[in-house]
């Protein structure tokens, strides 16, 4: 569907360097990178807002590098949403249809269809100034969809909404993807990547590395990389030993665990275990659905409503527990604990 070939762009002292990226039809592709790494710049080039100094943007086998934005069948959800303040919700969603040769009835049907998908029918006559962050997000998404794009660009779509709305929006995005729209989703949050992505690319200082490929694994020492750029915990290099055994590698430390891995992961990859999915207890939990490890608490970091424990179980594992659990378990550095997680909580990347 989309093929970026040796895209380069300079802005001030920053530059995108020979970016190559292929997005297949119907793919949900996540582009992760820290602030200022060039993620949005790349989306702007794909959308046609910026012209690369070299390289080509190929879309459906046609070179669209010099095509103006309005002639690309690509929708772009900007991070700040950019809803038109002088138009109400219906008019915002309708906007792209002003430039299409359809009857008024057909246009109205399309607008109502996408307002229904994004659950904003009740907001039809409201203006953007009177919408909440989550409502604005859904209106902007509906406006993108009404264009009926083949590719949807999302720039940090979850940045300004709360957890409940995130879940709603994730479901909507999954439905959009299932309807046949390719998606490139830019984020700095690896948790989003794990939940939604078919494939992940990592962008660092203008250089792009694509996950799930040999080159990515060869070039990126994952634990260091993730720790350095995302400050994210519990991401391990994962080596497949046999059908029921994997090795989790944290820097040079190796922990061999016996689990039934998903059949599709038949090569070395990465595993992410969300810290909030790890249970900490004083005794081993007896459950065949859980994998338990004995560990020693290394450090304790208190947050507003939770506590992060760094545990040494042969590899470094972080667990996020509630303050009540922390008090009940009387945890302090040096204490022996059992940490356990469901096998389904292992996210293979």
């Amino acid at each position, binding site marked *: 569907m989309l093929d970026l070939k040796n895209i380069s762009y300079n802005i001030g002292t920053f530059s995108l360097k020979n970016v190559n990226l292929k997005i297949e039809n119907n793919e949900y592709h996540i582009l992760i990178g820290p602030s200022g790494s060039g993620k949005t710049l790349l989306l702007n080039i794909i959308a046609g807002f910026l012209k690369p100094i070299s390289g080509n943007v190929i879309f459906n086998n046609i070179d669209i590098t010099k095509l103006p934005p309005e002639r690309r069948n690509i*929708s772009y959800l900007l991070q700040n949403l*950019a809803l038109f303040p002088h138009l109400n919700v219906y008019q915002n969603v309708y*906007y792209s249809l*002003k*430039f*299409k040769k359809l009857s008024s009835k057909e246009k109205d049907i399309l607008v109502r269809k996408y307002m229904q998908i994004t659950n904003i029918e009740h907001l039809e006559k409201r203006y953007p100034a009177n919408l909440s962050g989550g409502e604005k997000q859904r209106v902007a998404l509906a406006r993108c969809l009404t264009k009926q794009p083949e590719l949807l660009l999302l720039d940090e779509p979850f940045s300004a909404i709360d957890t409940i709305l995130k879940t709603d929006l994730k479901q909507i995005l999954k439905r959009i993807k299932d309807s046949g729209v390719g998606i490139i989703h830019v984020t700095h949050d690896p948790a989003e990547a794990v939940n939604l992505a078919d494939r992940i690319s990592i962008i660092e200082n203008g250089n792009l590395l694509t996950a799930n490929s040999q080159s990515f694994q060869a070039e990126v020492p994952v634990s260091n990389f993730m720790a350095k750029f995302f400050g994210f915990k519990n991401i391990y290099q994962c080596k497949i030993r046999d059908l029921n055994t994997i090795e989790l590698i944290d820097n040079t430390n190796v922990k061999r665990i016996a689990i039934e891995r998903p059949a599709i992961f038949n090569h070395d990859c990465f595993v992410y275990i969300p810290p909030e999915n790890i249970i900490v207890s004083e005794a081993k939990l007896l459950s065949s659905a859980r994998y338990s490890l004995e560990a020693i608490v290394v450090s304790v970091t208190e947050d507003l409503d939770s506590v992060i424990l760094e545990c040494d179980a042969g590899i470094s594992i972080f667990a996020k527990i509630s303050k009540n659990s922390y008090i009940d378990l009387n945890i302090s550095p040096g204490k022996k604990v059992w940490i356990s997680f469901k096998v389904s909580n292992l996210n293979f990347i």
Partner: protein
Amino acid sequence: MEKDFKYLINYLLGSVALLFIVVPIINMYFATDMDKIFSTARDSEVRNSIFLTLLISFVTTIVCAFFAVPLAYLISKSTSRMKTILLGLVNIPIVIPHSAAGIALLGLVSRDNPVGKFASSIGLNFIDSPLGIAIAMAYVSVPFLIVSAYTGFKEIPEELELVSRNLGATRWQTFLKISIPLSRRSILAGIILMFSRGISEFGAVIMLAYFPTVTPVLIYKKFTTHGLEYAQPIALIFITICLLIFVVYYLFGNFSKNKS
């Protein structure tokens, strides 16, 4: 205490500035006989002059808007150094004496000049004609419209125009459907400013067209031929009209602020 004293000085100095602006106008209202005001208002020469002034300024402003607004838009979108130069050029009529501006225009449209000759050949006469009044008014007042519209366009977040294009609008469609509606208040404010500046123009107008007589010229004519007593009622009526326009502009500005 020292701080309070300094603050009091601000009040005193500010009051002097305010009185300097307001007192001559107030004095005129008190110094002019009401009967004279009413009889002047009934004078057909005065009424025709006021009507002509308002009409020419209105038409001039509307016609100029079709040229000034696109120019303001292009300047606001310019990213080159030309932007500063263009803004400077646009403001020239504000910084030069208006009588000098009138002389410059007269030089251009006189029959000795190729432009004047060409205009004459197609039947356009600028000297002592409404057309001459119009170009004199336009020249000195159009910067107000351009600058106001420019400010409005500049305040539009670039993302809105980019999103519009991403959604299928061409640059022209984006200009019409996003940029113009979003800066309409600034454009309308500029139109009111240009119109009110146009009706009060004297220096440039008198160089091109003593006749037909617009009100500022009529006030001057009455003053030089009959004296202050005869000029004052016309001036007062005209000032009242200008103040009413100013009130509309002020209310409009406040309304815009409240709405935004």
